[in-house]
């Protein structure tokens, strides 16, 4: 146990001696008086140029140069270990902006200063250019913006007031403007012309031209227009198609509206119901189609580009194709043949005309049968299993004509 304590004391004293000696050597080193000054005189460099800085030291010691530039910070050694000539690495020297430097000897700053790097106008110009939006509306209110950033070969923006030529072509117009860059960029708003079409433009700095840009000018909002109809005949046969078409829809500057513009045709029929059909424009003209009604009707038609433009009102009347049709009762009134349904020239009506048969018993509707015509005729069978013998009222309606048969006796 005692031996153990002895050891601890011994160890403690050794540690103490070591610590004090280290402390003395650290704090009581002799200060050396080192000073330096910058020898090289050039303070402004063009990007890409070799930037070398020479210093003069009173005592030859090993120094390093600490740099701080837009790319970040770096600590560089002299070109040769014995000299005090520093060459700033090219990746920093190529970048426009300020480079601050500090000459350092053993954590001590001996000299500090700043050099400027400016864009190198002697290299080939490169242009960074943008346009947006790529499509605008004709009429002179909407515009697109062209932005140009002229730079040197190292991607450094040129100083302010660099001359940028900007040219654009629209139809027969070829326009040139001169811009001066400010805060690195040169920009221009290009307002639309009254006509729709395509505008091409580019910009130029010195001998360097940008690529070609194109801006689409779409027509402005549509103006009111006129509609017309085209139909094969005026009869309400429920089969032919009436074509409704617009005049060429244009905007207020006379541009044809862009293809695909939707035109809504709203049809008010004789009963006040609102029917609709629509068409999209092709070279300004929209065509919509609607089936002829299958009964006498008068349609009031008006077309709209919703919220923007409308047409005149068109009235179309459809004549009934029949005034009457034949109904034959057979097999003790249990077979009812409607037709032949004949159309306006006494021809058989095309297949598919709807015929509705309603059966009433004691004023109460008990069944409705709907069938479509085939070869102008429709046949209904009232089977005795389902309709007991008795007296019925039968209503038949087809193509807008209704016929009522009262007190039909089914055996």
């Amino acid at each position: 146990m005692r031996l153990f304590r002895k050891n601890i004391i011994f160890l403690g004293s050794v540690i103490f001696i070591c610590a004090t000696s280290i402390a003395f050597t650290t704090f009581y080193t002799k200060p050396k008086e080192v000073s330096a000054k910058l020898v090289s005189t050039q303070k402004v460099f063009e990007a890409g140029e070799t930037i070398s800085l020479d210093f003069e030291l009173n005592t030859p010691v090993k120094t390093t140069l600490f740099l701080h530039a837009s790319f970040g910070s770096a600590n560089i050694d002299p070109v040769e270990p014995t000299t005090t000539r520093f060459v700033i690495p090219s990746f920093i020297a190529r970048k426009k902006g300020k480079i601050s430097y500090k000459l350092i000897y053993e954590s001590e700053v001996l000299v500090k200063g700043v050099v400027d790097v400016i864009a190198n106008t002697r290299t080939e110009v490169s242009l960074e250019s943008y346009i947006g939006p790529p499509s605008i509306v004709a009429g002179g209110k909407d515009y697109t913006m062209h932005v140009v950033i002229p730079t040197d070969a190292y991607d450094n923006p040129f100083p302010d007031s660099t001359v940028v030529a900007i040219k654009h072509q629209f139809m027969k117009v070829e326009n040139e403007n001169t811009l001066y860059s400010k805060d690195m960029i040169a920009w221009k708003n290009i307002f639309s012309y009254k006509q729709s079409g395509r505008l091409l433009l580019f910009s130029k700095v010195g001998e360097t031209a940008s690529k070609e840009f194109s801006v689409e000018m779409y027509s402005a909002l549509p103006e009111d227009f006129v509609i017309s109809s085209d139909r094969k005949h005026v009869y309400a046969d429920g089969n032919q198609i009436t074509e409704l078409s617009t005049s060429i829809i244009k905007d207020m500057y006379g541009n044809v509206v862009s293809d695909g513009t939707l035109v809504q045709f709203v049809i008010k029929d004789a009963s006040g119901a609102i029917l609709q059909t629509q068409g999209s424009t092709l070279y300004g003209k929209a065509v919509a189609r609607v089936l002829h009604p299958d009964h006498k009707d008068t349609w009031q038609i008006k077309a709209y580009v919703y919220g923007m433009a409308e047409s005149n009102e068109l009235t179309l009347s459809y004549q009934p194709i029949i005034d009457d049709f034949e109904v034959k009762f057979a097999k003790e009134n249990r077979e009812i043949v409607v037709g032949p349904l004949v159309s306006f020239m006494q021809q058989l009506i095309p297949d598919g005309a709807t015929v509705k048969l309603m059966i009433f018993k004691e004023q109460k509707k008990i069944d409705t049968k709907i069938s479509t015509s085939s070869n102008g005729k429709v046949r209904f069978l009232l089977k005795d299993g389902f309709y007991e013998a008795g007296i019925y009222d039968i209503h038949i309606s087809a193509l807008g004509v209704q016929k009522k048969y009262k007190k039909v006796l089914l055996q």
Partner: protein
Amino acid sequence: MGVVFHGTSIFFTLESTYDALIHLFFGNHYANNWFETWNYSWYTGFTVMGYPPLVHQSIGLLSYIGGLKFGLFTVAIIAIVLFITGIYRFALLLSSNRKVAGYTAVLAVFSSAFIETLHIFGQLPSIIGLSVLLHALPEIYLWLKIGRYVYLINALSLIAVTVTSHHVTPIFGMIFFIFPLIGMVLMDVSKERVSTYREIRFVIFIQSFLSLFKRIVGFGFGALVLIIVCILPYWINTKNNPITQVPIPHGSRDNFLEVTSSGLVFFLIPWGILLLFIPYIWYRFFSKRYLFFGLSITLLTILGTGGTTPIPRMILGDNAFDILTLDRFTLWASIMALPMFGEFTYRFIEGDIKEKVEKNYGSIYYKIVAGVCATMLLAVTLLTMSLGYFRPLQPQKIKMLPIQNFLSQDQHDKWRYLTLGFGDQMAWLSAQTNAMTVDGNYHSARRLPELTTRAVERLENSKFRGVEGIGSLQQFLTVPEKYNLKYVFSNDKFYDPILYFCGWQRLRQLENGIMVWEKLNVPPLSNILPKEEVATFQRIMWGLIPVSTVVLAFMINIRWIWIHALKTKSKRFPVYFKYGILYGDFKKYLLKISYIWGILILAIAGNGLYLIYIKSVKQISPIHVTEAYYDALDIKEYKRAYSYLDPQCHKTIDQYMLEIAVNDGLLSSYAKMDNIKVSVTAKTDSTTKVKAVTHWVTPLEKIDKVYHHELVKYGKKWFVKPLSYDLDIPPDQLYTRNTTTYYNHGRRRVSSEQTYHEDVLKQPVLEVLSAKIVEHKDQYMIIGELQNIDNVPADVVVTGTLYNDKSEKLAKYNVKHQMKHKLLPKEITSFRINFEGIAWMNIEESKPDTFDPNQFTSLDFKEVPTRFNLQCAGNVATVDLYKEVAINDLSITDNHIEGVLFNSGLEEVTIPMLLISYYDQNHQLVWIDHQYLREGIRPQRKQYFKYTLLDVSCVNYFDTDMKNVFVNGLENTLITDKVVPERKEEHKSIQFLPINGKGFSYIKLEVNTYIGAPN
């Protein structure tokens, strides 16, 4: 023989099994990142620590030699070898007779349970786990009996392999295989104390138990430590991420008597031929030596019956019952029964049973019985093998290369994708591509609450999961931005309408016939995705332990294999050979029981066939024939449907098929019949009128439709009179259309650069004309109208957010289908945003039993929203701009609108949808409703519709302030002022149909059209 038989056939079956490709996917994961436990490919990232890795890692290792599939097949062949040798050793252990063991091994090759597990389910880990466990059993026996440590080490090394290949097998294997084995050892030890098994009494048994207690505990403790340590990361993961999911229905939990298909797959097939020999198997297992095996097999059999009896649920408890798949119990039971079946076969072919039968019934009879048994064995084997062929479990094999190429082109893998109708092949796709999917095929690993709260195994096959499936899918399709989901690969046209109406567009069909759907305005995935880190020690354990257990087990057991393969040492019989019995005393009554049982089983099978026959006689009554007719229509067996039609109506089959062929639409192309109720409305002796109320399920909504039919009777058979069809003749034979079509180059220069500035199109400008919050029965929605005021067509995405008074966000959602997503220049649409919550977050909430895809789980608002924000984004659309459907006739009756739609264009409209906007007397929008029409509209044809007007008097609207409405990130008010400053407000009412309804004064109709097959 087993290797040849299975080895050749797995090449045809394994790829189409349920699970094999999942294991392949995992194998691929390990092959690429051995120590990485996080996988981004599925479920927005999941941990692979949810499944013991040995088999996957083996596949991964072997894939370095010959690719993933080589790895899979090699592992499968190893599994077969292990299984056959394992069952041989197990049989040898039980019977102590090499011949019996040999027969058992041969029969094991043809065991239908094994075939099903391998060739239909593809559960490799479970087979390997079980096989290795079987190998471990003799070692355990020897350790307990003799007590040499070498046997303990052997046994434990094999148990370790079992643990790392499948965690459930050793846990239940302990109970069902090792405990009975211990019991058997005790019996054997007890027998040594007395002379025969018969004299063993309980006291002696306890004495032997106590004498072996140390060894048992030693082994048990060792096994427990292995189970915990070998897959420690798995247990840690399970603890951290407990399975808090809604259980997914599994056929093995069904009542097999009710759901006969489950009964077939999970009971009849695994048992197969063994069913005939159950009396013998039970008799032998309940002899005293095997008593504990008898108890175990009984328990396994009962557990294997799933939901047929309430007992399994009582034994396992609700929780375990809902998580475990119970088919494995049947598998274990049938494997356990194999040695006894082998023994019987041995005795039947060369033993005492043969003598007995020949003596009692004559040798010809014996040969017949033997022949019948052999034929049945082969028949069951073949049936099981080819089950996948008769009833395809999976869609046709899909060529993945075009999809892979698509995903790797043009940075398409920067977005997530989703597959629909791929079956388990989606795992194979995931293994081959870098792209990620929101779906996945290992449901225990699901993380998104949208998935875990629903019993939806995969989104991919959601149509089989009813409301939950389609509901989940719709959520993903409506808000794809949330998941960066941009591409859908559809292999099933069932999903097409839902994709269209949720605002997706068809991109193109790949060479393999898969349709690619795309959604615009979805941001790409960020470069850094969230993941759950795990401790390094866990990763190292996970990466190294499983393979090292195999290496260790192999090294330890190689001695045994060496001895047996090369017979280097003279054969020494293991101790258990002492306990073999002589087969000579076959009880006559047992033979009789077996005989009767066999006949009984055959009779039941025959009865089943007869019942199937009776069901197939359809035309005995009007109701039957109507049901049969619709059934035939439903499964598109038109020839059969035609056979039910009145033969005297002179309709030829060609004419009938033609009529069917021209019918397209929601009902005829996308519907599946849910049920049908047929009732007779009028009846005579030879004719009947019936009313058929049919319920159809479609991807969009549930459809109820009533049909009226007339039926006639000729002789004893009833026939359906054909319904009349549309006779309408269009006016034009050939006609032309000039329309505007669009093409967007994307990039004009072939370049892999990210975005070419000059090729980015301007987003079309939209203007929101009105928007407001509406409240209906405590549900809040945003409704409004917007117009594409640009000169190019727009695809529109509208996102609404609701806030409370304190500007706290309450809900955010997109417009689903109540809008026209594609707008031509100057076109308007109404829209409605329903705020959907995640369904059944609360498990106690009752789920609807019936399927209703139209139903959505509305969000439960805790506070009243008072403000809203609307973000609309337009993108240039180039497709789905068909607008040629006119409203050709309208009539208003009471509370109905009836009308005619007319398709004047060139495309066949598959599903027309009506959007109905309700306005009050001040021309203010109050409500928006929609209706899908059931039938499509062919070109130049008309279609009738009938819409029932709603009572909207209980709808309140508020906050019509438009200041928080933004279009493409710009304020809507600015757009209004700038683009259409002089809007003609009177146009608002041009389409108004005046109706004096409940809570509204006008309605407006709009038509949206889905075209199934664009020209």
